[in-house]
């Protein structure tokens, strides 16, 4: 019997151990607004916990800058700890935060969890820091706004800037005899036309869930800006309202028109992109971080001349401008208040001053307005147009809902959205489930 009990206990050991590891936590000891602490700069290793591609522009640029800084400050080194997979990264970050073991620098979105850390004084005031370094005015307002909490405070520094566009295959649309949608309401008709021609209308990475959740944000952003989601997440607005119902019914209409590829919920990022770049899908909604794959000679030659893009269509009576849509500045970098000292400040001053020019040289969009993006030699005409599009984007960015809702409501929304679009549940069921979930968890999370 003891052996039997042992086996049963062993079945739960892993989970119990993981849970047992979570303890501690507390506010930082440094004043988050004291961005210029007194004292000597003592070189040591500092760490940055990131969620960015290891071979991406941000990391390669920062590595170069850190090497230059280390040459001037013997004994300094920057330990970059990257976990590109976002869900895994968030779990790691939250566990470290719970154990009060966050490193000097760490990536985080403007989520309710981050807001709690900021309230506890565990993240430096980024606005005060950038102002003190004389760099605040250099940043694109949209890039900073994306990082702000609801109260307007800024605790994360952006390292990139993107716009999310609808890439489409002109030949497939022409072949199916359909036009680029002028309003969001035109999407179902576009999908039906493409389906009749035997073409997958929209390539979607359903496995990661956030791409479908983006669509959920579009209609309310056009009808009420970001106000709707900001009220909704607190339980102060419901999906059972004019704005909410319009969004839910639009999502259901996309499902009815079979807009997304069959089996989209188990389609991954690479497969979704391959469906578009191989000419099997007509539309693909993705950000400018994919410019190298969509607007250079890396793109499949068979579709290269047929690819174009359009921005988020509007709705009748929209309150947001045509130049306002999703323009994220990516996950931001927070500075740990508990470990902030003259060295961290000095390194950040050194790095943030040099970063925009070096980053723009990689062909990426800098979060500042001080530099011009270098267009790669193998770029197609679209590359320059997309960069110009980003430069002329409005100040209001559509906030992705996954950064706004509390984690429990967000998980449920992602799950229910898939069911709604697959036709497994009705809009009424979706609305009832989500309003109940947000009323219980959202209200508590934003008290």
């Amino acid at each position, binding site marked *: 019997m003891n052996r039997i009990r042992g086996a*049963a206990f062993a079945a*739960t050991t892993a989970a119990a151990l993981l849970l047992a590891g979570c303890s501690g936590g507390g506010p930082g000891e440094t004043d988050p607004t004291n961005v210029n602490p007194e004292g000597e700069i003592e070189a040591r290793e500092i760490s940055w916990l990131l969620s960015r591609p290891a071979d991406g522009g941000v990391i390669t640029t920062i590595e170069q800058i850190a090497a230059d800084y280390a040459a001037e400050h013997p004994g300094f080194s920057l330990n970059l700890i990257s976990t590109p997979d976002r869900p895994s990264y968030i779990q790691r970050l939250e566990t470290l935060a*719970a154990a009060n073991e966050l490193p000097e620098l760490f990536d985080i979105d403007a989520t309710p969890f981050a807001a709690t850390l900021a309230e506890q004084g565990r993240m430096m005031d980024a606005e005060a820091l950038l102002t003190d370094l004389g760099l605040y005015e250099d940043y694109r307002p949209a890039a900073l706004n994306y990082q702000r909490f609801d109260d307007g405070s800024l605790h994360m520094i952006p390292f990139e800037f993107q716009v999310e566009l609808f890439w489409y295959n002109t030949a497939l649309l022409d072949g199916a005899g359909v036009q680029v949608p002028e309003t969001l309401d035109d999407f179902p008709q576009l999908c039906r036309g493409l389906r009749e021609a035997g073409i997958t209308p929209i390539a979607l990475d359903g496995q990661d869930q956030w791409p479908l959740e983006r669509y959920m944000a579009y209609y309310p952003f056009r009808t009420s800006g970001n106000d709707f989601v900001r009220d909704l997440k607190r339980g102060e607005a419901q999906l059972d309202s004019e704005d909410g119902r319009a969004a839910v019914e639009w999502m259901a209409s996309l499902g009815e028109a079979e807009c997304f590829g069959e*089996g989209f919920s188990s*389609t991954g990022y690479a*497969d979704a992109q391959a469906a578009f770049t191989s000419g099997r899908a007509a539309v693909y909604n993705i950000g400018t971080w994919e410019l190298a794959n969509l607007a250079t000679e890396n793109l499949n030659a068979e579709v290269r001349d047929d690819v174009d893009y359009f921005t988020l269509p509007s709705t009748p009576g929209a309150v947001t401008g045509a130049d306002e849509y999703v323009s994220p500045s990516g996950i931001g970098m927070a500075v740990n208040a508990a470990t902030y000292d003259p060295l961290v400040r000095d390194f950040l001053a050194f790095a943030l001053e040099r970063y925009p020019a070096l980053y723009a040289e990689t062909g990426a969009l800098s979060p500042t307005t001080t530099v011009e993006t270098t267009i790669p030699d193998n770029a197609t005409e679209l590359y320059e147009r997309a960069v110009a599009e980003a430069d002329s984007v409005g100040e209001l960015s559509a906030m992705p809902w996954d950064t706004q809702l509390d984690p429990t409501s967000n998980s449920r929304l992602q*799950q229910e959205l898939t069911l709604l679009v697959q036709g497994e549940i009705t809009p009424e069921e979706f609305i009832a489930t989500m309003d109940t979930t947000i009323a219980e968890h959202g209200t508590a999370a934003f008290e």
Partner: protein
Amino acid sequence: MLPHRSRTAVLVFLLPPLLLYGIAVLVPIVQSLVLSFFSWDGITAMEFVGLDNYVRMLTRDDIFWTAFVNSLGYLAICLILQLGGALVVASLLIGLRRGRELVKTLYLLPAVISTVAIAFLFQRMYALEPVGLFNQALAAIGLDGLQRAWLSDVGTVLAAVSIPEGWRFTGLYMLIIYAALIAVPAELEEAARLDGASRWQLFTKIRFPYIRPVWITTTIMATTYALRGFDIPYLLTNGGPGQASELVTTYMYKTAFSHTDYGYASTISVFIVIECLVAVGLIIMLLRRRADA
């Protein structure tokens, strides 16, 4: 009765592993039990909520009950594949005169492949676009109409995530049952044959009763492994679409590490402990009662 010195020696040797067991197993379980009475997000102060987490789990959380029913379905499919499959293959294997080692190795092979590799393998095999192996096979035999995205269909996804887990460990249990079957005394079987016993009677009256103790152990192992099944469903579908392949374990993990609701996740983990103990108790009771009958 052991002499005094021997008893001391036994205690000295037993104490370290007992301490290790207590620290590694019992303490976390007790800690989970304590945490289950609190609401805690990991970064703010813990708030005592009494039995509210248990009330929420049992009365207000529809996902928990969906996950529980899914876990029972997952368990059933895994047991049928692992134990049923293992018994059939082991029984056929003892009748095989040549190539036994090769067959055993081939069946055991999935047990040594990494979980992540198995998940990626099945993800490709189940896919509809690009067309995976299962859908290609259906097309090849003219059953195109049955082609589907197996991991996106709420009607098929639970079976789809259970099959890789069942397939993976069939070979392992086959090996254990095979070892038990070859230990059945040949003279017993010979005597039964002389008395005119059929193959089925030989199996039900001689072989199976003889391997019953091994069968009980194997059933307990397979059941507890299936009840804590996590990795393959999590990697294949993350519980989706919707909650169609959500298991209690994947839900507990998400509650802790995605929702940062450690108190409620501890409540679910306490449920898993109880669930495992009840399952093991039921298995022993049923099999012993049948043996006594």
